[in-house]
């Protein structure tokens, strides 16, 4: 589901690099075969942990030229991801490639791993310089000039992403609002703890679901502050495509407005850095469909609920003993954050 990230709440970078990494030799062989001029690799480091995917950073050494800075995205231990909602890494690579051709800023995919590469499932892409840690993007001086531009850029990028031709897409699950609701309802019920506010939100979402005939497009599925590589010039890359699916394009516009992704900047609904109006203008000016603000709000409600359910199920891993860390334990006590956000959306007091 929502990547190991548990969504930008935790530190993204953990250096788990070791000298004699078993990936080193096969990776060096792959780059020699697929990167022109490559002689070997250095600085292999694990960036993000997590059950769903491994991300590794490394430099390719070249004969007499600058090193090439790359990223390896790989299934843990090379195995295929078993979760129903995540796309296979080969699909993710294909989507990034299509997005690049549609002028969505993404890292260039250099190589999709093949069986004889001996590295399992995954792909290699360019390493783009920039920042993904939301709080730094929202606070650091380095990004002060970029911040006012980000909401509009996000709108423009989403318009291009949503216009990618359906017939060019690899096989993806189709998940309109009703199936998203049912999926998270099942997860919530399996967890078992009563949350009357979640029940109210589920009921409201069922009663107000967009009509079945709502236009479907490619949906990124996790387009938010924390999954965008930002530089002083603005958005440099859209990352983490593993939740991509076919659905209502308004889903992406609503998800980035969920208060959890504003990181304290509650009055800047788009990612904590901008206004809905700026994002909608960018979206429509770049050829997106006419924005339906009520449907965007609908997806903000659904997104808030999704994140709330995710927080509650963190408790399961803690209680079962899978992860006894204090960090994991306390995330369960953040589901109430989404309850206050849901009440402010559905039953405002002012």
């Amino acid at each position: 589901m929502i990547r190991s990230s548990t969504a930008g709440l935790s530190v993204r970078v953990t250096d788990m690099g070791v000298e004699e990494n078993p990936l080193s030799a096969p990776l060096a062989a792959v780059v020699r075969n697929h990167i022109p001029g490559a002689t070997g690799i250095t600085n292999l480091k694990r960036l993000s942990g997590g059950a769903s995917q491994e991300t590794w950073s490394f430099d390719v050494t070249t004969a007499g030229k600058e090193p090439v800075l790359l990223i390896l995205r790989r299934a843990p231990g090379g195995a295929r991801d078993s979760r129903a909602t995540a796309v296979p890494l080969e699909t993710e690579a294909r989507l990034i490639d299509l997005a690049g051709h549609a002028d969505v800023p993404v890292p260039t995919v250099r190589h999709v791993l093949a069986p004889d590469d001996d590295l399992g499932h995954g792909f290699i892409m360019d390493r783009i310089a920039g920042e993904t840690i939301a709080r730094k993007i929202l606070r650091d001086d380095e990004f002060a000039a970029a911040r006012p531009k980000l909401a509009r850029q996000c709108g423009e990028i989403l318009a291009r992403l949503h216009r990618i031709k359906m017939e060019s897409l690899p096989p993806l699950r189709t998940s309109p609002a009703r199936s998203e609701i049912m999926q998270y309802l099942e997860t919530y019920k399996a967890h078992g703890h009563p949350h009357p506010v979640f029940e109210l939100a589920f009921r409201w979402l069922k009663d107000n679901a967009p009509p079945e005939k709502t236009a479907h497009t490619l949906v990124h599925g996790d387009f938010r502050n924390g999954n965008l590589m930002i530089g002083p010039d603005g958005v440099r890359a859209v990352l983490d495509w593993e939740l991509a699916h076919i659905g209502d394009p308004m889903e992406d516009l609503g998800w980035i407005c969920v208060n959890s992704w504003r990181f304290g900047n509650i009055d800047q609904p788009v990612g904590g850095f901008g206004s809905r109006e700026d994002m909608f203008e960018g979206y429509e000016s770049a050829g997106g469909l006419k924005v339906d603000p009520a449907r965007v709000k609908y997806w903000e409600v659904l997104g808030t609920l999704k994140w709330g359910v995710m927080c509650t199920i963190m408790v399961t891993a803690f209680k079962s003993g899978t992860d006894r860390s204090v960090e994991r334990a306390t995330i369960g006590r953040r589901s109430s954050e989404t309850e206050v956000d849901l009440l402010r959306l559905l039953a405002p007091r002012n």
Partner: protein
Amino acid sequence: MQDQPTAAELVEAVAEFIRNHAMSQLQGHTAFHARVAANALDIVKRELEIAPSANTGEAARLKALLGREGTLEELNRELCARIENGAIGLETPGLTDHLWATTLTKLAIDQPNYSGYKRAVEEGR
């Protein structure tokens, strides 16, 4: 009746020990987890102070709303079931007041610095 100091005071002392003494001896990920641990103890302290009377109020509201008796968990499960089947909804008198009171209590314990909570408190004034 238990002796002094109170459970809340003991928990507070441990949180202070972690923040003021232990953390300076730690590095990297362990220091990060120590901070998370101290924050978890803050939650426990607030729960010990706030929950007993808040839970009594919550149970009283639920009994009035549902017209039945039961434990706090039974009453919450009943409310969930009635919201799910549509018997109780946004238009039911007392429901949103109840949910607001219960939710604000949760936040006062769990995350009193959360932006949505602080804003909701301002809006309710």
